[in-house]
């Protein structure tokens, strides 16, 4: 019988780690992975509350979040590949021009 706050605490820790990852890393792929980590932290909170309230809607939401994450990753990685082709770098510090 765990209190739900354990899961929410873990979710908060993982979300903060993801946010820090977006801010400190310069590799665009690792930044993307940190965003995935934040999405997963949110999903964990969704499932914890879904179990707490005995309502399946939270789990359906996680299902949709997974779909959106898959779409986002497909487009994002395509963008990274396109950027790498034109700039030969995925360091976000070097991508500061609006007009390449």
């Amino acid at each position, binding site marked *: *019988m765990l209190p739900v*706050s354990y899961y929410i605490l873990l979710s908060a820790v993982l979300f903060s780690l993801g946010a820090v990852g977006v801010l*400190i890393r310069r590799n665009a792929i690792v930044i993307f992975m940190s965003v995935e980590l934040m999405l997963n932290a949110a999903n964990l909170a969704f499932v914890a509350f879904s*179990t707490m309230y005995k309502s399946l809607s939270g*789990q359906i939401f*996680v299902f949709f979040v997974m779909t959106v994450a898959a779409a986002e990753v497909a487009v994002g990685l395509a963008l990274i590949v396109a950027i790498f082709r034109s700039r030969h770098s995925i360091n976000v510090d070097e991508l500061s021009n609006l007009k390449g």
Partner: protein
Amino acid sequence: MNVDLLFFIPIALVSVTSAVAMLFSRHAIYSALFLIINFGTIAAFYLMLNAPFLAMAQVTVYAGAIMVLFLFVIMLLGAEQLRQRQSIRWQQPLAIILGLFLLVESVYLLFSAGNQKGPLPSFTTLLSDFGSPTAIGEILFNQYLLPFEVTSVLLLVAMIGAIVLTKSEKG
């Protein structure tokens, strides 16, 4: 110490450790592998929270499909070792401090609000088909039918977008 806590604490430690290791490993490949471990632990949490369908979806979609895509792009670009040249010197410490602020704030909000003590049912006592594929499918195709159909359009758009973006200009 009950059996839930006995399972929760080690998996939570592995989860947080792999997340930290993902942030601070130099190679993008190692980051991706640590993230796969993290997704695996989250699937274990879903199992403990009576969500077996989501746990399997987590393993197949996240740890399977999405991370394979990541690894594929990392190896395709061959740019796994970036030189760590910071153009803004004070950004990294400031980011860590702000992240700590975010964590402290969210934990404070969590424990200052009153009524989130709600105990979760132990995963050793099975709820009658809560979170099973049957139950999920039933609610997905009745109550959430329209969002489910819209999702297919989203995936189609993402697919077309990825194809258009990676198509070479001359082709």
